[in-house]
Structure formats: structure tokens, C-alpha cells
């Protein structure tokens, strides 16, 4: 990878904003964080959040609600999203791993790919672990992997005043055209390695996660344990909404006029009671425990890992933060391993 010294990440952001819609996560001053459009004239300091924002990049590609086609009573008309070149600026390694996971899952989905192919990803390495993260355990971070982003920002541990900018793709290289940057003189590989060691130490061995994954794949978690966990699931879909790799959806038909209609798809959740229920009433996942088991098997099952070359869990810890029943990833693994 080519490495540059970057005096101000804001300069890079403004440069990209000349030809793209640039989005960045910003605090709203009231404890909330949201993706916001940033103009080329906006020089607000770029401050990567210490915690992953509530919403990952998922909805930029896999829209929460999406028009699929229209029907006028006689013909069906496909609709694809109108896309503009866009940049997601400052994505953490865990969320970029999730984008890569969904890139594979939605490889043949024209709606997803239309947006994805118009997007430049600018990642940022983490110097410290977020509170509930375990990226070092599942291998998603804290350093952004080469194929996961187009450009990678590396903050410095020492008192250096600049940032490092790594070019990770042809598209990233092309996007820098017109921006004069000096080559990096620092030993950036060594700095990134040191950062990874630091974050891994902060995250610790996370033995319950490691042991829980082994138990799950060995079929050692019995139905009774899953049902006990299922009792704590409210079926609220908080986890599936915030999980950056969850991808289930449901179609919704909407009548526009007597003879015309349109079909949309909306995010769905495998934790809803009726998710698999058939018209006959037969429900292959009728109990909450079965549905909770499904969710976690999808995140940590070796069968899925074999297909995607990565776990469906990227270690961001959002499920822990959002689950009102206390069965986010640490809650589940603790109960599974320690039989709490």
C-alpha cells in the first residue's frame, strides 16, 4: 500500500466532497450520533468516535425500505435506485468487515450493488478499544484490512501532528488525484502493529466469547439453555436492526390506485415469531429459543464462516448495547459458558 502523510483529515474530506456526497458520523450534542452529509466547505474537526455509532453503514447499501417495482395493471416496471457517487468517511474496521460480508451476500442484488459500486470507503484504524468491542477476537480489527476500504486513515499514537493515509485500492488512488501529499516517512506498518497489540490487550482474552463459539459449534448448548435465553428475547428486532451484517427482509405490496401497485422490501427480523410461519400455520422456528439459536448460529456458526471466510459477528458490541433483555453477545456467551 502507498502511504502518505496527511496534515489534516479535514483536507482530504473536503477534497473528496468536491466530487462526491460525503457522509460522516457526527454527534448531535445530545448524546446521539447520526450520519450527516458534509460539504466541501465544512472544516469541522474530524474526530473518530470512541464507540461505534448506533447505525453502521448497512442502510447506505441495503436500504431499510426500498422500492422494487411498479405495476400499472398491465405491465411490471423494474426500479433501481438513482445513485450519486458517495463517500463514507471514517468507518471503523469492524463496520468495514461487515460491508465486505454483505458485499458477498448481496453480490447478485442489483439494488445493493448499484449503491455499493458508487461508494468510496474511507476507513479509520482504532487506537483504543471501544467499551464492548472484541474485534481482535473475531479478526475484524482494529486495523482496517487492505481489501476492506479504498483509503485508510491511521491516527498516530505519539505526539506527531499528522495522520497517515494509506491507499488501498485503485478507486482510492483515483480519488486522491489533485491532492498533493508528501509520502509518509514513518514506519507505518510498525505503528499499526503496535496499535493492534494495544487494542488486543485492552480487549483481553474474552474467554467467554471464545469458549461460547466452541460450544455453539460443538452442539453443546442444549435446547433448554436456548429456551431460557429465548425467554429474555422480546422480539423487538433491536439486535437485527443494529447488527451490521443482518440482512433479512420482507416484501410489502402497496396499492396505489385500483389497478396499480408497487412492491417494496423492508428490513425484517428472524427473531419475530412469524418470520418462518407458513400459510398452513406450520412454523419451523415456533419457539423463541429456536429463533435465538438461529440468530447466534448465523453469527458464529462455522458453516457460515466457511461460506463467507469470516464470522457473521464483527465484534462491534452493538447488540449488547441495544438488547433490553440482556442477551447481546456478551450476555449470551456468559450464560452459555457459565450456565448463569
Amino acid at each position, binding site marked *: 500500500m502507498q502511504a502518505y502523510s496527511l496534515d489534516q483529515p479535514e483536507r482530504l474530506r473536503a477534497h473528496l466532497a468536491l466530487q462526491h456526497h460525503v457522509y460522516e458520523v457526527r454527534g448531535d450534542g445530545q448524546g446521539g450520533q447520526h450520519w450527516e452529509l458534509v460539504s466541501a466547505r465544512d472544516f469541522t474537526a474530524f474526530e473518530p468516535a470512541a464507540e461505534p455509532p448506533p447505525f453502521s453503514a448497512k442502510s447506505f447499501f441495503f436500504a431499510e425500505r426500498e422500492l422494487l417495482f411498479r405495476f400499472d395493471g398491465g405491465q411490471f416496471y*423494474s426500479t433501481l435506485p438513482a445513485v450519486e457517487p458517495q463517500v463514507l468517511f471514517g468507518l471503523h474496521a469492524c463496520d468495514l468487515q461487515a460491508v465486505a460480508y454483505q458485499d458477498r451476500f448481496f453480490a447478485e442484488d442489483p439494488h445493493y450493488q448499484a449503491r455499493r459500486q458508487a461508494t468510496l470507503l474511507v476507513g479509520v484504524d482504532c487506537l483504543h478499544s471501544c467499551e464492548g468491542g472484541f474485534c481482535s477476537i473475531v479478526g475484524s480489527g482494529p486495523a482496517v484490512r487492505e481489501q476492506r476500504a479504498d483509503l485508510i486513515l491511521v491516527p498516530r499514537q505519539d505526539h506527531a501532528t499528522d495522520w497517515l493515509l494509506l491507499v488501498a485500492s485503485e478507486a482510492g488512488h483515483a480519488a486522491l488525484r489533485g491532492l498533493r501529499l508528501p509520502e509518509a516517512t514513518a514506519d507505518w506498518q510498525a505503528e499499526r502493529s503496535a496499535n493492534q497489540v494495544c487494542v488486543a490487550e485492552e480487549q483481553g482474552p474474552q474467554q467467554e466469547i471464545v469458549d461460547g463459539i466452541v460450544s455453539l459449534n460443538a452442539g453443546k448448548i442444549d435446547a433448554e439453555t436456548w429456551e431460557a435465553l429465548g425467554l429474555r428475547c422480546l422480539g423487538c428486532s433491536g439486535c437485527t436492526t443494529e447488527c451490521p451484517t443482518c440482512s433479512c427482509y420482507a416484501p410489502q*405490496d402497496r396499492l396505489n390506485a385500483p389497478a396499480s401497485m408497487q412492491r417494496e422490501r423492508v428490513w425484517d427480523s428472524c427473531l419475530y415469531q412469524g*418470520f*418462518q410461519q407458513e400459510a398452513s400455520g406450520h412454523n*419451523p422456528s415456533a419457539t423463541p429459543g429456536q429463533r435465538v439459536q438461529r440468530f447466534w448460529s448465523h453469527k458464529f456458526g462455522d458453516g457460515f464462516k466457511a461460506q463467507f471466510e469470516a464470522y457473521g459477528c464483527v465484534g462491534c458490541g452493538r447488540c449488547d448495547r441495544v438488547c433490553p433483555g440482556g442477551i447481546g453477545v456478551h450476555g449470551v456467551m456468559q450464560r452459555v459458558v457459565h450456565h448463569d
Partner: protein
Amino acid sequence: MIDLTPRKLLLLDHYADGEEARHFSLRIDKPLAGDLAVIPGQFFMLTVPGFGEAPFTYLSLPDQQGRFNALVRRMGALTQGLFEQPVGAVLGYRGPFGKGWPLFFCAHRVLVVAGGCGLVPLAGVIDEASQHRLPLQLSVIYGARHSAAQVLGRERERWRQTLRFMETCDEAKPLERQGSPLDHFDELFAAEAPEAVLCCGPEALMLATAEASLQRGIAAHKIWLSLERRMHCADGLCGHCYLGTEYVCKDGPTYRYDRYLQVRGAGYPTATKQDQRLC
């Protein structure tokens, strides 16, 4: 890239065929080459505008003009919406999807076990065999709750002429066979033991059939089932039809029993090399 937009499908005709069930004649507008390559046991997605989209199996396969038949039982809002459509109505079609029944296996004597509407996905295989286009000696046992719930009246009459076709009802009238298809397994196996079993019906019936067949010496790799699952996309994306790490819409709906057990994660021993042979 996948296409989630249906193509135009015309409702040509229909007639009542069993309790709350109708036999529909349909025509794909401007059929494509792929429409003529359907294998019995595959399915299509039917859009009833304003009511949604759901999977249905082919009762007969599309011809050069795109005409084919389907059997639909009224179960929910979508099928109710379909039953209200007039002849000539424009519906939506996507397909074919999924994996069909095996047609080139070496077993000669094949037992078909069907329950309720589960006879429909098997109709293509039964038709082929009854017209001697498959080198199979097919026996069929068809179970239903009672005779009024039986479907495919005209097809059954035809099949009875050329095949060993046995019918049984849970609530039988005098002179009708009584009980589930499984109640007649001893008789079926005593006459001429089948070498392979194809089964479609309620999941409990299929699993019981598979186990009963195993007990009678048929290997798991010679038993086939067709699973019903809720499906919305048929492209393995919406997630609804999951079975273990697979999606029934793409990897099924037809499963070899050993494969089904493996996918379901029932701890069934990994198939040996010998087990993996089809013949």
C-alpha cells in the same frame, strides 16, 4: 444479477379441484428459453397484485406457448386474492426456482408417498412415469384427511389406469382405505419392496416416511423429500426459508434425506463415500 420484478402471467382458466382448492391454467407472456427447462419439483413465484407473492409448484410444466397448470388451495390473503381474480387477469411470474426431483437415478422400483397438496409437486414425475418416459416402475400412495380434501381428481383418474395408485384417508368412508400412508407400508413393501422413495406432504409425514423407509432397509441417500417453507425472494436473500446454513429456495426444496439431516444439524453421521453414490 437477480431480478425481483415479475413478468406478466395470464390467468387462462380454473376449475374446482378438491376442498378449497382450484386447478389453474396460466400462461407466461413471451416465454423465454429458461421457462421451458423446468424440472418437476421446482417452483415459481406467483404475484397476485396487491396481495403479495408466494411460491407454488408446477403441476404441469410450461409448454412452447408458456402455458402451464398449478393447483392452489385457499389458505390466506394471497390465495384468497387469487381466487377473486377473473379469467384474463394479469398476474406476476418469476421462475423457475430451486432443485427438482431426481430423474436420472438408477432405482427402478420407486415409491411415491404424498400427503394432501403434497401430491402436486410430484405430479410431473408421476406423469412422466405413467407415460413411460422414465425407466421407472412407480407405485404411489396418496393420503388425505378425507375424500373431499383430495386434489388432482382428473390426474388421479388418469394415473390409476397406468400405475399402482393407492389412496387412503384419515377419515375413510366404507370401501376406502383408512389411515395415513404409513399404515400401509407393510403391504406396499411386502408386494414389491421399493428401491427409492420420493415423498411430499406435511413435514411430520415426510419425516415419519423417511424413518419408516430407513427401518425397511432403504438407505437415506435413496429417500427424497420436498420441504415447504415460507419464501419471499426465491434467491436466497430474504432469509425466511433458512434451514441450517442453507436456504430452501435455492438449495431445496427437494432434499435427499441424508443431506437434509446433515443440513438440519441433527448430528447425522457424515455420509461415507459409498453412501454418496446415487445408484
